[in-house]
């Protein structure tokens, strides 16, 4: 296991905690009827986007899916803008045109996903292709769920990435459900890494609730991609500690599973690691958390101050020429 510096430890911890608390707050806003559309959160899955995206360089690119908020945050997207996007406000990155984490920011190296699951994967390949084309030593991190791997686009893209040896890391967030469908009903094999055998890409099964495990696996994969040795697939096994969306009670998930996975909570687990290895003290951790709490509150305040977009701008930006 990697030895964790104080700085890395507190960055990882604060990122995971920020994702957790921000999403928690957004859920509350949802219950208060303040969120415009649906809410999709990654509770329990924070280690995956945090442990991987933290290693990207400024010119690298991330392609997060809908439960990878830490990747957005680590690329520098201000938390208040996330909230503003959920609230449909003018200052969200989509200026109210799209909701939740359906957003991108080219200057931050964030490519927007779209609803069609796995559609982002071929697009992420194209970003990696551009690095190869320009002989740029950069990499792409592309995230997707277990459910997304049943889709044709995923297959086409995995194969394409392998054939072209693209500088990309495919991160499967296997939270064991696609909406109400357990992995056992999605495929006749056990793991996405089994599924990925057909591409000639190195695969690794990763404990997705162990942020350091994710960190190390991603580090290796990123290094490999950066050296021009091609893609890697990491299957990060975790659990969706929520309904599919904020309005879903997930009655189809056996209660025991939530209990079992609650014990593996990635934040508590990392806390414990940091304490045990004397990386951070309890006080340090509490400081991190109260900073996070303050950040969340100020994010919500600032987001709520952002006005709604003016309908007079409805048609701007459909085409470049009309801008």
């Amino acid at each position, binding site marked *: 296991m990697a030895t964790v510096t104080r700085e890395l430890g507190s960055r990882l911890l604060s990122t995971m905690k920020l994702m957790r608390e921000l999403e928690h707050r957004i859920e509350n806003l949802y219950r208060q009827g303040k969120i415009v559309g649906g809410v999709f959160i990654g509770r329990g899955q924070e280690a995956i986007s945090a442990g991987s995206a933290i290693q990207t360089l400024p010119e690298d690119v991330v392609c997060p899916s809908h439960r990878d908020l830490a990747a957005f945050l680590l690329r520098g997207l201000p938390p208040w803008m996330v909230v503003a996007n959920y609230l449909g406000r003018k200052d969200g990155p989509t200026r*109210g045109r799209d909701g939740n984490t359906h957003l991108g920011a080219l200057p931050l190296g964030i490519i927007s996903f779209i609803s069609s699951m796995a559609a982002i994967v071929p697009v992420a390949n194209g970003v990696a292709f551009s690095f190869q084309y320009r002989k740029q030593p950069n990499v792409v991190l592309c995230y997707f769920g277990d459910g*997304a791997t049943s889709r044709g686009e995923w297959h086409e893209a995995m194969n394409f990435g392998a054939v072209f040896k693209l500088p990309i890391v495919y991160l499967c967030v296997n939270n064991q459900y696609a909406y109400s469908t357990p992995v056992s009903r999605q495929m006749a094999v056990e793991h996405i890494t089994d599924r990925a055998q057909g591409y000639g890409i190195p695969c690794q099964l990763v404990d997705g609730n162990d942020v350091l495990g994710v960190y190390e696996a991603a580090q290796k994969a990123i290094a490999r991609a950066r050296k021009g040795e091609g893609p890697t697939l990491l299957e990060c096994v975790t659990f969706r500690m929520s309904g599919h969306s904020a309005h879903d009670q997930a009655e189809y998930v056996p209660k025991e599973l939530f209990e079992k996975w609650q014990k593996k909570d990635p934040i508590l687990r990392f806390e414990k690691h940091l304490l045990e290895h004397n990386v951070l003290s309890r006080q340090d951790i509490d400081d991190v958390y109260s900073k996070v709490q303050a950040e969340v509150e100020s994010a919500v305040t600032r987001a709520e101050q952002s006005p709604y977009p003016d309908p007079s701008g409805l048609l701007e930006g459909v085409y470049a020429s009309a801008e």
Partner: protein
Amino acid sequence: MPVMTYIEAIRKGIWEEMERDDRVFMIGEDIGAHGGAFKLSAGMQEHFGPNRIVDTPLAENAFVGAAIGAALMGLRPIVEMQFADFISTCYDLIVNYAAKARYRWAAGVPIVIRGPSGGGVRGGPFHSNNPEIAFVHTPGLKVVVPATAYDAKGLIKAAIRDPDPVLYFEHKLLYRRIKEDVPAGDYVVPLGQARVARAGTDISVITYGAMVYVALEAAEKLAQEGDGVDVEVIDLRCLVPLDSEAVLASVRKTSRVILLHEDTRTAGFAGELAAQIASDAFDCLDAPVLRVTAPDCPVPYSPPLEDAFLPHASDVIAAVRRSMAY
């Protein structure tokens, strides 16, 4: 007659057809134990079993293709798209396989592909689309767009019994907002018959889906607001087959026409109607044919934007006044 919501009417129609004909089954994502994203099939898997309410992996081509193959063998599959928007991921199988099979090799494909379409629920660009036009344009497919609970039930039954591939686009805004008397037993609303939603003498508003209510609202307001304009509202119910007779009859009667749809403007269904009217009712028009539609942009998420995007009664009223003033 029981009072029923629009979604309940669809559900009942499917339920009754499944009781009636054991070739009928439903396939899609999360429709089993979970009962579907909109709970349309809640309890159906318990009743009909997992062989007839079939949960699938997240793979629209896989299950639409499976439905096509099963239909070729004489079964009667109903496919649920979790949102109608996702139909674009299995577009090829629908427009190239299902639509052309009968023409090419005399093989019928009696499938129904249904799902929630339309905006007004803050679904944003990927959960609010009206994807009908590409299918309307594809020979071999039929396209159904119910506006009332009565029609929703009668048309889903007609669609299930139809020997051709039918796309049945429900409007999700209507799911639980529309409630009305719906006969408990079996009845069918035949495909291809429009409905006069409101009879009128001065101007025709031709529309379908959720916009029927917008048209009716406009008509009522115009009646009340002293314009003295008596608006006829035609609810098309089906886009293919189209009841051109009903459209032309209304236009011949009123001599003025507004074409209204929620879908975006360019090359939307109003174009087809305009072409038929300009060709076949040219001599009885007293004013330009006007379109009221969403503008050419993706469906935005934020309330003020989506509100500006969607056609409203006020837009219809303005168009009616423009037409009447001509």
